[in-house]
């Protein structure tokens, strides 16, 4: 069971959250110019590191906002950084 730090509500039990996969995946800037290979990578390919992973969580049963967490995929340790504890400055 993860204890996930919601930037707005504080640390809460994992059951309150919904997982959104890898964070910081940006939509292609110029869609018509994107090749099939690059579209495939945008749609289907995500990092899968053994170690620190930036990922999206939504506080579904609380404030319902999305935020980014850096979690170690081996130990489950969550890094408090990036201003993740400060509401408002968290990357969306």
């Amino acid at each position, binding site marked *: 069971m993860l204890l996930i730090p919601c930037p707005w509500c504080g640390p809460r039990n994992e059951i309150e959250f919904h997982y959104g996969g890898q964070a910081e995946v940006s939509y292609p800037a110029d869609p018509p110019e994107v090749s099939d290979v690059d579209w495939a990578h945008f749609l289907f390919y995500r990092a*899968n590191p053994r170690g620190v992973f930036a*990922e999206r969580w939504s506080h579904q049963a609380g404030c319902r906002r999305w935020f980014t967490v850096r979690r170690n995929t081996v130990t489950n340790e969550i890094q408090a950084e990036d201003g993740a504890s400060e509401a408002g400055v968290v990357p969306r």
Partner: protein
Amino acid sequence: MAPRTPGADLPEHPDWLWRSPDPKSSYDVVIVGGGGHGLATAYYLAVNHGITNIAVLEGGWLAGGNMARNTTIIRSNYLWDESAGLYEHSLKLWEGLEEALDYPLLFSQRGVLNLAHSLQEVRDSVRRVEANKLNGVDAEWLDPAQVAEICPILNTSEDLRYPVLGATWQPRAGIAKHDHVAWGFARALDRMGVDLVQNCQVTGFERVGDRIVGVETTRGPIRAGKVALAAAGQTSVLADELGLRLPIQSHPLQALVSELLEPVHPTVVMSNSVHVYVSQAHKGELVLGAGIDSYNSYGQRGAFHTIEREMTAAVELFPMFARAHVLRTWAGVVDVTPDASAIMGRTPFDGLYVNCGWGTGGFKATPGVGWCYAHTIAHDEPHPLNAPFNLERFTTGALVDEHGAAGVAH
């Protein structure tokens, strides 16, 4: 039926089935991962293609990964032609495997019920039954009364929150004793001179341009004519060494067993909606599983609330389970693809082959994977049955989307 002693069907624990050799400096084929897939692949390379100068390199102990952790359900009632082809080929191989390996695998064709709990699921299930029949897969649609006849302990009353509206039935489906499957392959391989090297973690690759010519391991470098990955949930970590991206995400998948009970549960029951699957092992434990934990993990453990939900579903469907004690729970690391189908075939690197993305369902494919992957490696091109499961499909769009259609949610 007179009660039987739990465990009476189990053969004696084997004494010693394979050597534990040091790795040689080079092989024709090096297989990375000594789970069911790696072992079966080596077996069919030897038996179907006459290649025996093979090493299976296992980072831990033989078949201690997902092979040792799965709930051993074997079936072939998949919707799409591509999947039905591969899994049905595998099921046919299962039906002759004990004889081929001359080893007891406790392959028990006790059938599988896939329950439907909503009108949409009824329609999808009936469609899948018809698709199965067209593909030569045994399948029937059963109403709740027929379901109750096959599995009397299942609660088929109408006052459940999600009543059982019917089920698909595949009589040839079943379970096998996972350890024995691995040991049977291992013993056969050892006799054919294949090296099964344990405690030998592959840490990188040796390459000449875009050709892979060997692997780096915790027991030194090993040269190889061909290198075949069969590392299940750890494949991304290996592929990263080459900068090779794969569309897989590794998640924990948990299972649990009860204490030993008298035989009560005659078949395999799966429910996608309330999400639990359960069978009774040969010794008498109830073996239960459900879906993956939502987040990525290599930690081989998941969260308790996932187990709690699975137990809630199990107790609603099988009220008598409320009195059973959980003996232990555990997790494996499974590799999930965007279309819920496996990836099997060549890679952009000459001499490197990939087999991954089996997610929550690759045990049933074990002999079929071995057969097709061995063909791919020996001929440097896929077998017709695994050709659709190539890596290019994520670019061409020819996905084999088995989500839901497979009757199991990831």
